[in-house]
């Protein structure tokens, strides 16, 4: 185990080459490939309904800045979505050219190109639709930032409360560093929250200096975009050994430029995008061998085939049908992992054969996040939660408590993608505009 810091030199030398981009010379050619579909399937597939043929046409006629504006109209986080969206399972999968004539148009990279032409210092104007109203947004991640930004644009005053010292949420801390180069997440957060009607309060956590009942009293509405701050646990022996890490906090620490430990032989447990992110980054940080183990087949992994291939391209070994049953250590330090082979039998996962013992000096768990332990304390006591332990909301992202909306990862209506958080937030804002405009503030 060695200690490494993700400094600029390492970022440029090892992470930068993974950044995908379309060479300037190929942009127009790629834009010309778009058929400019009507009722385009790519738009339907985009959770935020970006006018994809429209923005690509703007690029094709030489106006990438206008393309960016069109993207932002539908998705204020158009820049980070262009970096982190699994487009191969969203817009590009549904491109009419996906199965025809040279493959899908590279929508994600074109969006990236358009957003590169946008000046993130420009301020959006406000309409007076919601003037006089005030909303509290808890959590400055993708969902909270979108809500704040959209509400400010319609004239509503917004106070944003963020537990961390900075805004951005998982975009700032949980996404692989090679996807968010050049300070992209922070630049976007500044753009979204810099508005005369938005006040950002950092270092303020719900349940500590901030209380839901108080917010309900002080504001016309409250939006909870608190994300998932807890890490799922494996529930097996050895989980507390030194050398065992939860992937998301580890990535956050690494991206802040703090020293992190890197093992020689690394095991990642999980099959989602975070599993691929951490596996790839462990390799980039210098791990000699990185294995990903997933208890079901590769086709069931949350990570797309493309993400899996990216990991393989970095020398990551992906194993399916392996389930960790114990992490073993010596003197409190992880030394090996016991893995049980599994198989599908009549749709059920069963154990087959003898467990394997792999010599591993660093384990990452990337099996998902959950509400933090603090949830359920008196502060949130009246909120209803769903079967997955997330905040229960209806189709308008209203919680059971009047005047309180929730969206993003802390609700369970959609996958934990940035683009879904934005879509949640858009729906919540629409609902707030309808309800808060027609109602007087409760006193």
């Amino acid at each position, binding site marked *: 185990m060695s200690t490494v810091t993700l400094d600029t030199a390492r970022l440029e030398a090892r992470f930068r080459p993974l950044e995908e981009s379309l060479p300037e010379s190929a942009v*127009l*050619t790629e834009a*010309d490939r778009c*058929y*400019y*579909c*009507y*009722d*385009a*399937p790519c738009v339907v597939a985009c959770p935020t309904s970006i006018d994809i043929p429209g923005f690509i046409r703007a690029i094709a006629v030489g106006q990438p800045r206008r393309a960016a504006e069109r993207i932002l109209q539908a998705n204020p986080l158009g820049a980070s979505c262009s970096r982190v969206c699994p487009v191969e399972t969203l817009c590009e999968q549904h491109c*009419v*050219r996906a*199965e*025809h*004539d040279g493959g899908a148009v590279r929508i994600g990279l074109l969006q990236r190109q358009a957003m590169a032409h946008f000046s993130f210092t420009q301020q959006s104007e406000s309409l007076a639709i919601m003037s006089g109203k005030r909303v509290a947004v808890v959590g400055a991640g993708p969902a909270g930032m979108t809500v704040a930004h959209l509400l400010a644009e319609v004239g509503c005053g917004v106070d944003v409360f963020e537990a961390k010292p900075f805004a951005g949420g998982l975009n700032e801390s949980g996404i692989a560093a090679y996807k968010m180069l050049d300070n992209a997440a922070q630049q976007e957060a500044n753009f979204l929250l810099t508005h005369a009607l938005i006040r950002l309060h950092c270092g303020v956590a719900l349940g500590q200096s901030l209380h839901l009942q108080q917010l309900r009293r002080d504001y016309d509405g409250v939006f909870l975009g608190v994300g998932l701050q807890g890490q799922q646990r494996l529930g097996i022996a050895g989980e507390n050994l030194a050398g065992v890490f939860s992937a998301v906090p580890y990535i956050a620490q690494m991206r802040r430029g703090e020293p992190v430990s890197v093992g020689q032989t690394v095991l990642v447990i999980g099959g989602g995008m975070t599993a691929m992110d951490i596996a790839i980054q462990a390799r980039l940080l210098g791990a000699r061998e990185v294995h990903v183990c997933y208890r079901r087949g590769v086709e069931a992994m949350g990570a797309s085939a493309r993400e899996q291939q990216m990991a393989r391209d970095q020398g990551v070994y992906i194993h399916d049908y392996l389930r960790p049953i114990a992490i073993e250590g010596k003197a409190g330090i992880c030394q090996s992992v016991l893995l049980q082979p599994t198989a599908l039998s009549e749709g059920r996962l069963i154990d087959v054969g003898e467990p394997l013992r792999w010599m591993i000096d660093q384990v990452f768990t990337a099996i998902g996040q959950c509400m933090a332990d603090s949830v359920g304390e008196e502060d949130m006591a009246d909120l209803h939660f769903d079967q997955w332990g997330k905040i229960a909301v209806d189709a308008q992202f209203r919680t059971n408590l009047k005047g309180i909306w929730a969206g993003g990862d802390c609700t369970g209506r959609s996958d934990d993608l940035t683009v879904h958080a934005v879509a949640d937030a858009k729906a919540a804002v629409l609902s707030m505009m309808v309800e808060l405009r027609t109602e007087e503030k409760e006193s």
Partner: protein
Amino acid sequence: MKPDLRSEFVGITSPNPFWLASAPPTDRAENVERAFQAGWGGVVWKTLGIDPPVVNVNGPRYGFWQGDNRRVQGFNNIELISDRPIALNLAEIKAMKSRWPDRAMVVSVMFPLDEAVWSEWLPRIEATGADGIELNLGCPHGMSERGMGSAMGQAPELVEMVTRLAKAHTHLPVIVKLTPNVTDITWSAAAALAGGADAVSLINTINSIIGVDLELMAPMPTVDGMGTHGGYCGPAVKPIALNMVAEIARHPSLGKMSISGIGGVGTWRDAAEFMALGATNIQVCTAAMLYGFRIIDDLTEGLQDWMTEQGYTCLADFAGRAVPHVTDWNQLNLNYVTKAQIDGAKCIGCGRCHIACEDTSHQAIERVVETGRYVVRAQDCVGCNLCVAVCPVVDCIRMERMELGIDPRTGVPISPQPSNWTEHPNNPLLQKDASSILGQGD
């Protein structure tokens, strides 16, 4: 055995029907040598004028319009005729013709209306061994300001006069190159014929402003902040050229003239189309300028491949074959009913046909909600072909003829008997005494 591409045009033979048009590619011996090495059948030497030579602008002389993938669709130029001394050109023409005796060597000229000039220079051109003379009556820029080029070509009486002058001073075949910048190309062709022309070649370039530089607020190509109209050519002009060739070819009294087809030819298919519409041979310029002389391989091999498939053994087998099928609108069969058919297996669901039809045609294409694909409602389809034009998938939408039954759009039974406008009850000429409208019939 491969089809025979050997070509004869007003007595001028060449190993294939592809000549390089009078233009920058035929400006000098170096170019022509490379062209002949590449396999071109002949050249029309860049237009000669009398000394002192013209001078060209020293800024950009070409403008262009690019389509998808930056491919040039239209091209224009403000270049003038040869800017080299006439004697130098003649020496090079002589050398090239003697090095390449089997290739066609035609010399383009643009001389003022001064018989002394023609009588002096045409014999000297003939002395080089050249095979023919082409009269440049077409350049729409620069030269026309001096009373030559299209200034001559636009006035039929001048066309006739110049042709007669040329014929009087040379034994070589005289080809009159026509400008398309006229109301009716057949007037120019008739004038050339009246002056004794052996053939016409067309089209020369079209008057054009290719674009405007919106920063400089000036036409392109821009020379020190100013621009001027130039001659338009390239793929974009082919349809205009095809029509003009066809108008001459199907004209009762002009149709026997030999036609050298020019205008946007870049592929064997373009060439075959020109020849089907009555051109005996083909002149190429822009495509060679954009891709180099090597395109001659595609032109010759492609034409031979196609001829083999069709069973044609020589050019005469298909030359002019489409001419009898060019007619006036009022002769078209109004009982020929077509409906668009979308191949559901090929449809990719882009919706282009739907929105085009919905917004700008007859609202005849609808989306099938279950499949996301599109179908045509025959009762609304007028058979206009717009959907075929916008569909990105090859052969996905076809126009299918309805042979029998009732046209669901009009409710009228489809007659197997052809019938055209001249017979249609809505034609006002049928309701009145036709001669009173037409005046005295001719």
